[in-house]
């Protein structure tokens, strides 16, 4: 199952879902979550998910079910507005709170320190963005972010290049 996390004010994830259905994908193969009406706080950096309640975020809001779905998904796509050439803060809040999927423990991988992941399966990550995002930067960021979580980047696409993103969604 692939997950589409839509934080955009224009609910652009709906357009992606329509395209997916049009291209023959079944509704059971993916899930879109519109987070715009959900209560999702920023990460407060308490480190409880590493050192006090391993794997569990201390913030009690609408995020926990999303994280659980992310953990089990094959792919996670962030559909995001952009500011300062980067993701919106709403999307970044969701990303920052992925930390319970990693543990406090460390290792070296490809010459750099990484946290040891908590679960055996890791989702891959992709981005579909709207607005004046800096695609080169977002690509670099997505690759780095995926590296940190033991997975790979699926790519970064402007919403007007949605068809390209959709090709990657079941590649």
């Amino acid at each position: 199952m692939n997950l589409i996390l839509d934080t955009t004010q224009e609910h652009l994830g709906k357009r992606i879902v329509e395209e997916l259905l049009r291209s023959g994908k079944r509704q059971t193969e993916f899930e879109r979550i519109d987070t715009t009406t959900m209560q999702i706080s920023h990460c407060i950096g308490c480190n409880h998910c590493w050192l006090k309640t391993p794997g569990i975020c201390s913030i009690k809001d609408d995020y926990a079910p999303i994280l659980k779905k992310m953990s089990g998904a094959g792919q996670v796509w962030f559909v995001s507005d952009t500011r300062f050439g980067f993701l919106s803060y709403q999307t970044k809040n969701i990303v920052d709170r992925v930390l319970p999927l990693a543990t406090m423990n460390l290792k070296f991988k490809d010459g750099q320190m990484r946290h040891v992941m908590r679960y055996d399966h890791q989702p891959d990550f992709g981005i579909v963005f709207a607005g004046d995002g800096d695609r080169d930067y977002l690509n670099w960021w997505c690759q780095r972010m995926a590296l940190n979580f033991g997975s790979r980047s699926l790519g970064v696409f402007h919403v007007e290049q949605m068809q390209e993103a959709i090709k990657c969604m079941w590649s």
Partner: protein
Amino acid sequence: MHVVMINGSPRIEKYSNTDKIISSFGKGLLERGASFERYAISERRSWDAIREAYIKNEEILIALPLFVECVPGLLLEFLETLPKKDDRTRLSFILQSGFAEGSQLRCGERFLEKLPEYLGVCYGGCLVKGDNFGIRLLDAAGQEKATKPYRAMGALFAEGDGFFRTEAKKFTGPEYFPLPLRVLMQMVFKTIAKKRFQQAAASWGCDTPLDAKAWE
């Protein structure tokens, strides 16, 4: 020189590594005759005051922890509330992280390099340094010792060249650790470090293994 220092960490000041770094940096500023005022975005009710200080002053320094390769979501939200200014204002950064290698912070640094342009102000450079995760876990003397190098950087900053001087660039330390050191550290990670982390967790009241699979 009068510097507005903004702690961009979402963590409350008492437990904020960035807060301890700012304190040490501030001592360096004072040594060289500069002054400063400091704020923290972790308290939303102070955002109006921070914005006002940002508007009124021309030397702004944001210190922040790296959160997933870039700035924390809460800081992004705060930045959205800032008005555009002109290039008489200089915006500089201290970017710190838990991971020790300089290469780990470059993606975040790139974002910060470009940010001033979006805000209409000029860029004063970015002081980049890792290996700060444990500051909050140290006692007062340990925190003083761990953050002492930032005092020298505060003194350097007071001389007016932002973070563009060689001393500031060298402050980062190694971009990557050499292979023999990595091999040694890997052994430490699997043994002593793992034990220490579990001990730290125990002191927080945790008796669960740190690699517990919460959902399985």
